[in-house]
């Protein structure tokens, strides 16, 4: 191509570091990180953001997104984010949590954070397994799904049912925005970005608590190829975890 004819159509978000990630091939964390970084850029928040990291595959978010960051104990990110936001209400504060972190050990923290209507944004990555520790059963593991600690498949009479966090949090008065999205195809990625920006907006406009649940693939622990994992999002996850907006106070 001749000089001058080049047209940049796709580039690294400004607030993202240009380094390889530790994520497995086909993992959706990378896409979700990128969407978060784009949203930070589009709202021009890089200089003003404080990120709360959590425990799980997402722990290294502070290596990838170039913003001030603090690490929370397992499940406690919403409490840490509360402390940060109360201390510095002028900052944009978000936490990024996986399903074990948010929906199991940290269920109390997320419910109460949302219920207080904390002006924070929580990004929740639901891939139906504990990824970092090697694919154990998560609170979002589907009934029948085999994991290293549900070798016979999740049994509803013993382990109960997967938690629908976007619906649960959407039902709370303090929640200003709650949605479930997926990033398994371009169309869904675009929708996801729109939802994510709304979850930012409710904080920026001081409306309330913002929440987005991402259905995410974990080919490694699902023992699938990235393509099959992508398909599973559509065929197995979405029927139980429907995409949609469960609360939107912006449009009220």
């Amino acid at each position, binding site marked *: 191509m001749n000089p001058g004819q080049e047209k940049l159509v796709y580039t690294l978000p400004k607030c993202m570091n240009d380094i390889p990630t530790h994520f497995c091939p086909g993992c959706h964390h990378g896409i979700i990180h990128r969407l978060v970084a784009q949203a930070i850029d589009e709202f021009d928040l890089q200089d003003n953001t404080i990120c709360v990291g959590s425990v799980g595959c997402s722990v290294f978010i502070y290596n990838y997104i170039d913003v001030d960051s603090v690490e929370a104990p397992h499940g*406690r990110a919403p409490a840490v984010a509360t402390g940060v936001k109360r201390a510095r209400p002028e900052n944009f504060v978000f936490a990024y949590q996986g399903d074990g972190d948010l929906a199991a050990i940290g269920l109390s923290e997320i419910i109460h954070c949302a219920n207080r209507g904390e002006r924070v944004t929580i990004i929740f990555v639901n891939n139906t397994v504990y990824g970092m520790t090697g694919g154990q059963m998560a609170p979002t593991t589907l009934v029948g799904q085999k994991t290293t600690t549900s070798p016979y498949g999740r049994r509803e009479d013993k382990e109960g049912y997967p938690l629908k966090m976007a619906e649960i949090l959407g039902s709370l008065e303090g929640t200003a925005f709650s949605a479930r999205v997926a990033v398994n195809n371009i169309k869904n990625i675009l929708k996801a970005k729109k939802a994510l920006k709304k979850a930012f907006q409710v904080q920026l406009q001081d409306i309330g608590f913002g929440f987005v649940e991402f259905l995410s693939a974990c080919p490694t622990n699902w023992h699938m190829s990235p393509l099959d994992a992508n398909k599973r999002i559509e065929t197995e996850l979405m029927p139980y975890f429907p995409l949609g907006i469960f609360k939107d106070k912006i449009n009220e």
Partner: protein
Amino acid sequence: MSENKERLLVKGNEAIAIGAIDGGVECYFAYPITPQSDIPEYLSRELVRLGGEFVQAESEIASINMVLGAAACGKRAMTSSSSPGISLKQEGISYIAGSELPAVIINITRGGPGLGGIQPSQGDYFQSTRGGGHGDYRTMVLAPSTCQECYDLTIWAFDLAFKYRNPVLILGDAILGQMKEPITRWKEREINPNEGAEWRLTGKKGRKQRILKSLYLDEGAMEQHNLRLYKKYKSMETDLKWEEFMVQDADVIAVAFGSIGRIVKSTARKLRGQGLKVGVFRPITLFPFPYERIRELARSGKKFITIENNTGQMVEDVKLALCGICDCGFFANMPGKVSTPEDFIQPIKDQFN
């Protein structure tokens, strides 16, 4: 210093809350538990009136993690609780220590183990001075014995927390929390807007990104981190604090802390009245512990007895201090027993034989 030297008659718990106000606390997060609920009751009223942040958290775990978040922003942040609640906070305290953040934690203890009861107990000495949570860390531990000290040491705790970027724990009990005594407020509340400017999170505008964390996976990194922490804990010895009460000419020294430390003073006076030269050595910093001073006193030929409201915890530190010089007597009032000066007369007398 304030011109207003008016004395206030307040509970130890209130003295701590007032000390927190005058010490510049900006964010306070807590969960109610007896016998310290006067602290959240006072601060929910007074701190909020001053424009500070108060959240009654959903749990002890959430409250300590809110402290972590506020501390990461360089704010003077505090939580308070009582023994079972402090157990729940240990995870967060470990992370705060590991991330090298300043925080003040108040423990107005209950008896244990388990739910125990609200009677006095010094059963949390080990938990307080040995870190308390997982990992090889230490918190600074301050043990007041008067309501004035509750006030003074809370102010000092904030300064120490920022000096060392480390959690500082105040260890009191229900006697101290519930008794009233006059205090003098000597410190004017002031907020230093630049505190922690070199490490706190504000958003990265105009500088490089800051990461406050306790995860060290790279080879050698955790080792280096622990070495740095170890050196920091050693350096805390420059802030050792203790009280010597009639120690100079004493033949027997009773070592006791907190409420027992003051009750034993009354015993010592009674015994002096009977012609027995008794002194009291009261450690005020429990970590770091004044090993060297106790050793010095032992070298001058004095005898020691440790008196505690537990089955024998601080006595281990006293014995470490005395190691090889002399032995240390020990007398225990079980957690749950309300101690009086009379309880300690015979055990101290026995040391003279």
